Structure formats: C-alpha cells, structure tokens
C-alpha cells in the first residue's frame, strides 16, 4: 500500500489566516489582555515589598520578594479559612448532588399525591435567595442553635430549587426503556436510580456539582451573616472582614486574594471544557 497523498482540505481551500481572521484575532488578543491584566497586576503586587507596591505602578517587581506570601501563609488565618472553605464547599456540593438528584428523579419519574403541589412550591422557591431572606433565615438558623457552626454555614446552602429543576428536566429527557427493563427484572426504584439513572446522568450531575462548588466556594453573603468567629470563617469572608481590618498591606491583600481564587482557577485550567459545558448547561437550563 502506498502512503496516501495528503488530500487538500475540502472546506477551506485558502489559508485560515485571512486578513479578516488576523484582525479578529488581534482584537480578541487585545480584549483578553485587558481581561487578564488585573489578575497579573494582583500577582505582580503580591511579589513586591509593601513600600514598592505603593510606588508609581510598574509591572516587574524591582525588589522581588515572597515575604507577603509567607506572611499570609504563616502568620494569618488564611490556611485555616482555606480549610473551612474546603469543608463547607465539599459538604454543600455532596449534599446538593444527593438531595437534588433524588428530588429531581422523584419529580420526573414517580407519581404520588401532592406531587404537583410540591413542584409548584419548589418553583416558587426560585424567586427567593439568601439576599432576600437574609434576616428571617438568620433568625431561623439562630433558633436551631446553628449560628457560628459548620452546619449553620452548610445546610442553608443545600436547598437549591434551581438544581432540582435542572436535574428534573434532565431525568425527564432520559429514555424510559432501560429503567422499564430493570423494573421488569424486579429491580426497585432505588436500585434503578443508583445503578442505571445515576451513571447515565454523569454529564448533568457534574455540571450541577461544578456550579454548586463554585457558588459555595465564592459564597460571601451567607457565611458573613452566620458567623463572625474568625476561626470559622471561609476564605471570601475572612479576606473581606478580618484581613482588611489590620490596615491595608496591598501585597498581602493580593496574595490572600490569589490564594482564595487559585483552587478554582487551577481546576479551570485543567478541566476547561467540562467546566465551560457545565456552566453553560446549568445556565441554559434556566430557559
């Protein structure tokens, strides 16, 4: 067999670098630079000494130092807040995935008295948020004795009507044949749910999980309301309240901010396409 001769590209006989493409790419490049610049500026600031940071702006630190990074990692509460953030976000994501997928499945595939009323109640919940419910939600959590506790931070974030709705829509779109076959073979609903439905739903579940994790990691308002104990604070919370109150040291403030943002950015760089699909999926499901 002879080596096949490279066939000419059928659809685009011309080079892809047309003048239009070059111009468009340059525009995109410029816009991307504007979008990344603030982050690079934060990084640059964090590598300067406090005195250099307030000198007239320049990008490359003349007096390159990791002191601010050491400072926030050793002296401050930041490692502690980081762990708190991780505990809260992981718990929230896990609980949300569990209860929302169960409820979505219950709504999509079972029939029981009062189902439509419960669904209407869930839909109504889409209009409420901690920003609106803040004060009565706080007094409720207070009467449950959960102020200044992990549970108080976690559980109120675990009843997202939107995620139930998204998964309900998804389960409805699954073909029923597989489940029916399993039903005929004598499998109960729970077994069908865990062994057939869940494995089929990985893309949707990961979308919901990613979105929940981002929202929870970045949640500022609720942890801010429910705790003012510096040992229990989450990352966004501590950065905004405690760190600022020590007087402004810009390099430290920027280093702390980068540490708070780093996990999600690192995950994003590696799982870009999944996250993009996940966010677009959960967003579009609102239609």
């Amino acid at each position, binding site marked *: 067999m002879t080596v096949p001769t490279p066939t000419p590209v059928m659809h685009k006989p011309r080079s*892809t670098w047309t003048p239009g*493409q070059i111009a468009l*790419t340059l525009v*995109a*490049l410029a*816009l991307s630079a504007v*979008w*990344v610049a*603030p*982050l690079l*500026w934060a990084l640059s600031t964090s590598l300067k000494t406090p005195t250099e940071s307030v*000198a*007239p*702006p320049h990008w490359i630190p003349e007096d390159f130092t990791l002191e601010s990074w050491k400072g926030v990692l050793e002296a401050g509460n930041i490692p502690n807040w980081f762990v708190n953030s991780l505990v809260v976000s992981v718990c929230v994501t896990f*609980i949300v995935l569990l209860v*929302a997928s*169960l*409820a979505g499945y219950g709504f999509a*595939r*079972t*029939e*029981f008295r009062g*189902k439509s009323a419960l669904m209407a109640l*869930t839909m109504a*919940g889409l*209009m*409420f*948020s901690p920003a*609106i419910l*803040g*004060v009565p939600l*706080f*007094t*409720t959590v207070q009467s*449950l004795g959960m102020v200044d506790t992990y549970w108080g931070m976690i559980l109120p974030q675990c*009843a997202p009507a939107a995620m139930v709705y998204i998964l309900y829509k998804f389960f409805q779109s699954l073909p029923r044949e597989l489940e029916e076959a399993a*039903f*005929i073979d004598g499998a*109960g*609903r*729970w077994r069908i749910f865990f062994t057939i439905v869940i494995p089929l739903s990985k893309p949707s579940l990961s979308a919901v999980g990613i979105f929940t994790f981002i929202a929870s990691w970045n949640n*500022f*308002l609720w942890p801010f*309301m429910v705790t003012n104990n510096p040992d229990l604070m989450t990352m*966004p*919370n501590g*950065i*905004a309240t405690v760190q*600022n109150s020590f007087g402004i040291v810009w390099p430290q403030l920027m280093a702390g*901010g980068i540490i*708070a*943002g780093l996990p999600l950015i690192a995950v994003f*760089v590696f799982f*870009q396409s999944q996250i*993009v699909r996940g*966010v*677009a999926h959960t*967003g*579009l499901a*609102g239609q």
Partner: protein
Amino acid sequence: MSSTTTTLATATTLRPRTATEADSARLRWGRRFQHGGWFVAPFFVLYGLFVIVPVVRGLYLSFTDANISGEHTGFIGLDNYREALKDDLVWNSLWHSVQFTFYVVPMIVVAALLMALIAHHTVHFKWLWRLCFFMPFLLPSAVIANLWWWLFQPTNGMVNHVLGTDTPWLTQKSTAMLAVVIATLWWTVGFSFLLYLAALQAIPHHLYEAAELDGANAFQRMLHITVPNLRNITGLVLALQILASLQVFDQAVVMYQFGPGPEESTRTFVQYTLEQGFTSYRVGYASAISFILFLIIAAVALGRMWLLRKREEGTLR
C-alpha cells in the same frame, strides 16, 4: 401507576415463574419505600427548614416589632410597611440597586455578545479567549472587591495610571457606583459570554451555507440568521442579570469597607435590610423591607414568564 402495573402484568405472562406469596410480600414491603415521596423527602426537609420556614417567619416578623433576640415582640400590623414607604433610606438604597442594574445589565449583555461573536468567529486560540474572559467569574466577590479597590486607588492605582488621570474613583459620589459597575462587568461578563457562545454554536451551520448560496452577505447573514437565533438566549441573560443585579451586595460593601460609600452613594437595598436587621437589630422592620425587594424580584420573574408565554402563543416558534 397504571403503566407500571401493566408492565408488571406483561412481565408475569412472559415469564414462566409465577409470583409466590413471599414475592408479593416482598413487593408490598418494598412498595412502601418505592413511594416517590421518599425521593423528594430529603430535599424537602432542607427546603422546608431553610426556605419555607424563613419565608413564613419573615412574613410574620414583618408585622411585628421584633428585635434580634426575639424579645418584646408585639404585633403592630402594617406599621413596618407604612414606615418603609416613608423611609427615605429605603427609596435611596432601592434607587442605588436599580441604578446599578440599569448600568450593569446593558453593559454585560453587549459585552458578552461581542466577546462571544469574536470568540466564535476566530479560527485559532478559541480556548485562550474562553480562558481569559471566563476566569474572573471563578473568583470570590470579596477578592474582586479588594482587587478593584486596589486598582481604583487615586494616586498609585493602575486604572488612573493607564488612563493618565487622577480621578478619585472611590471617594467621590459621581464615580463611586461606576467603580462597582466596572468591577462587576469584568467579574461576571464571562458567565453570559459562555451562554452566548453556547447559543452561537447551537445555530445550525447549514443555515449560513444556504444563505451564502442565496447570495446573502455577512451582514445580512448576521441580521437574518444570528440575531433571530439569539433572541431566546438574550431574554435569558437579561432576566438572570436583572434578578442578580437587583440583589447586589458583596462587591459594593467590600469595596467601601461595609460603609455606605461616599456621600452614602453606594448603599444597596440588600445592604440596608441587613443594616436594619444586624446593626439596628430591627428584625421586624428588616423583614418588611425584605418583602418589598421580594415583590420587585417576583414581578420581574413573573413578568418574564408572562412575556415568554405570550410569545409562545403569538408565534409558532
């Protein structure tokens, strides 16, 4: 339930094995937990505790003069609501939230659409645009606020340095809210950008090919294919952004150190409700003004549903 019984019946006729006493007992026992209610129960426990109870409680509190510890609670009817309508700070802070919404929503829609069109039509480096435009969305609001607080510093801030100005962005009334708007645009546009990008990618390619064969130029293709196909997503982006922007809180408070901003120009509505609840300890009053915000949010949400339904009825799309 009827469909499942018929499938069960077919199953028994198809299979040689007949149901025994034990089988039916197991089925009957199993059926108790097969009830769909068990699936939705865990969610409704949490939903009841942290959504329904607070809503009902808030509604009740809004008719009382409750303080933070719940003592001395007296029923005072509509007094809180009457007071709220006469409270200048209610209107003032509501105006700030509305003002923020008016600025930020059109900016986000236009910027997100332009960015998505650029990213969609470039052949190379698509991943790079996506990475750059979406990355800020992953950062916590507090980090965004600290970062822009730094960028907007009057003497050694990067914004003034780049623009060659010495605007005191954060200390004068005329630019204080604008600073929050710019920070928010930079932060959140990536989300709407992704939605637009997904919508652009979903437009069938053959539409463009057919139009090109029919002699439509790039502008006509944009006007007659892209724009109509993006109408739904624009509605969605608008709705999501309006609802989120009316509830703005984080960026504004952190950028102004939990204060009301220069000449009280950035106190948002959510901030005012929390000030009433947690600083003045007037839980009853705070609940009442929260419900005013809820009514506005609900009006927007229901208004959108009404519009969608009307359009579905009006056209065949």
